[in-house]
């Protein structure tokens, strides 16, 4: 039966070539955009390179302090808070403190070079899995002794020292000079924990390690076994409960901290965190603050995708109804030959899924071009690609698009009365 369906599908597609082109183009464009969007999403959730173990990492980069009526603060952990309250935790296998990368400018041969500088502790290099190109990574000694050494990425090495080894050479960042001890592969901007151009020990400047809170602080809590995430969160919650900022003792009576997976971080970043209103109940808000927004995020993302697909799908459905009108006698014939409504509707949806699949194939050819363009432009050091999950997502998009655009015309076709259809009726 499928063979017969395929024959008629391709025959119908060849009857009206321009219409087919419009349909294919619509499907291909829609699936291309969705595949690119999914590839971006996937690069955050399943990043390649140094952050590939991120499912085992919880990131603690936000805390809420309630000292009303004097003060209320939403901030991020500083190194001192990390050192005194997080480092002693026993449930994580490893913990690390780093600051989000910040921009620093230098002049090389009269040319201004802007780089992203990240300061780290030594554990950072154990938790993330950087690909070392030459030299070594930052070691515990470098951090303990506050050595002015740096690891740089390939792009920075090529900019500063084109055609030669960067090892042992000096690089200037944030007005300080550092000796390059290692070169690592470029990490994309979508890898929020690994991305930077230059990495230096956080002990090279007290401004990096003297704060209890720091809006750029990122604490990584690494566990081998992801089923222990809940235990880590609970231990963190209990440890942070007693936190009091020594510079302002007694002001903040209550503290809430959250440690999230990358998906939870992304979801809250896009959907928006809880915004307390005056006179709020801290415990209730803290509960919301601590709960991730993943379900809402997935619902919104799903709705946006469906909406995005539905517009071209409606257009395609409209074109398909035109095709159905042409095929009324065939539909009548098939009904007279014993095809039930269900079978006919299935056939038409099948035809549409095939058309969408052809559009999907086109999209799979177009998407790498677009992803390559993004990698070269908007996504710094981007590694967006059509990997397994993205390919699977494309398959799902094709299927959903095919069913969405075929279901209504199929239903219209299937409800035609056979005697009416055989007369070639134009009324569906």
């Amino acid at each position, binding site marked *: 039966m499928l063979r017969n369906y395929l024959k008629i599908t391709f025959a119908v597609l060849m009857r009206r070539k321009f219409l087919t082109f419009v349909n294919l183009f619509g499907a291909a464009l829609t699936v291309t955009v969705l595949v690119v969007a999914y590839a971006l999403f996937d690069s955050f959730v399943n990043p390649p390179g140094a952050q590939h173990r991120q499912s085992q990492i919880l990131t603690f980069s936000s805390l809420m302090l309630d000292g009303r009526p004097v003060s209320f603060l939403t901030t991020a952990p500083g190194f001192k808070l990390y050192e005194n309250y997080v480092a002693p935790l026993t449930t994580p296998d490893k913990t690390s403190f780093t600051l989000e990368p910040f921009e620093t400018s230098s002049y090389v041969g009269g040319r201004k070079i802007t780089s992203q500088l990240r300061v780290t502790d030594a554990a950072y290099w154990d938790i993330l899995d950087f690909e070392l190109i030459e030299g070594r990574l930052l070691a515990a000694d470098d951090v303990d002794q506050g050595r002015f050494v740096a690891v740089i990425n390939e792009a920075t090495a090529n900019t500063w020292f084109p055609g030669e080894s960067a090892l042992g050479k000096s690089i200037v960042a944030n007005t300080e000079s550092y000796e390059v001890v290692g070169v690592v592969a470029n990490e994309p901007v979508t890898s929020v924990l690994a991305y930077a151009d230059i990495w230096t020990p956080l002990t090279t400047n007290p401004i990096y390690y003297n704060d209890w809170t720091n809006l750029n602080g990122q604490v990584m809590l690494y566990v081998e076994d992801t089923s222990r995430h809940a235990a880590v969160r609970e231990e963190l919650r209990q440890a942070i409960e007693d936190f009091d900022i020594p510079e302002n003792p007694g002001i903040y009576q209550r503290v809430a901290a959250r440690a999230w997976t990358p998906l939870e971080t992304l979801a809250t970043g896009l959907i928006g965190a809880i915004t307390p209103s005056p006179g709020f109940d801290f415990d209730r808000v803290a509960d919301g603050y601590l709960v991730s927004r993943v379900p809402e995020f997935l619902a919104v993302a799903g709705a946006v995708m469906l909406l995005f697909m539905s517009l071209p799908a409606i257009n395609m459905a409209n074109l398909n109804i035109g095709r159905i009108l042409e095929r009324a006698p065939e539909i009548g014939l098939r*009904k007279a030959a*014993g095809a039930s409504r269900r079978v006919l509707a299935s056939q038409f949806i099948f035809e549409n899924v095939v058309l969408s699949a052809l559009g999907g194939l086109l999209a799979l050819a177009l998407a790498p071009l677009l992803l390559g363009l993004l990698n070269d432009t908007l996504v710094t050091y981007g590694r967006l690609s059509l990997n397994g999950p993205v390919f699977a997502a494309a398959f799902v998009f094709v299927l959903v698009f095919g069913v969405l655009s075929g279901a209504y015309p199929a239903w219209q076709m299937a409800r035609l009365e056979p005697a009416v259809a055989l007369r070639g009726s134009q009324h569906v």
Partner: protein
Amino acid sequence: MSEPLVALSEVQKVYRTDRMETVALQAVSLSIQPGEFVSIMGPSGCGKSTLLNVLGLIDKPTQGQVTFAGRPVSGLGDAELAPIRNKELGFVFQSFHLIPDLRVIDNVELPLLYRKGTWRERRRLAREALAIVGLENRVDHFPTELSGGQQQRVAVARAIVGKPNLLLADEPTGNLDSQMSEEIMTLLERLNTEQGTTIVMVTHDQAKADRTQRIFRLFDGQLIH
């Protein structure tokens, strides 16, 4: 007398639009015995095709009963009627209704798609049906590559491929010249006598109707005797 293969009792068919009501069939009662070859005659617009469609379960009567092989079928839904159409009925239309994009053999096997069976089995039955109508050498042609008579023979092969008990032919020779129309008429007679297929044929041609065992005459939607 044995049980009729198909019987109508007081069947009425009314087509309604917003502006008017057209009575296509009025109090039609008839029965057709297994193995019969009958014809339906009447002027244009008298309801011949409607009567054939009601007999073929592809149109529902507004009132009255249709019985097929002893089973009342007027109230059945699409899902119940589809297998009856598939296994018990075959249709031949004046304008052939072949699918132009499919080869002859694919057109012929169409009814078999809606029942169980392997591709090989479908192909075998389709070739057998084409052999019966003398077109075994045209299996890979497209309909447009055939003459009108050959196309109608393909349509007949499609109608009989599922070995139906009742073949309904709506002016099967209406679009053919005299020689081709004789070919089709002879073929239908052969199917009736050799295979025992019950045939109901709508025709305008008195000579052809005379070659059938019984003639139903319709006038303004009513049977006249």
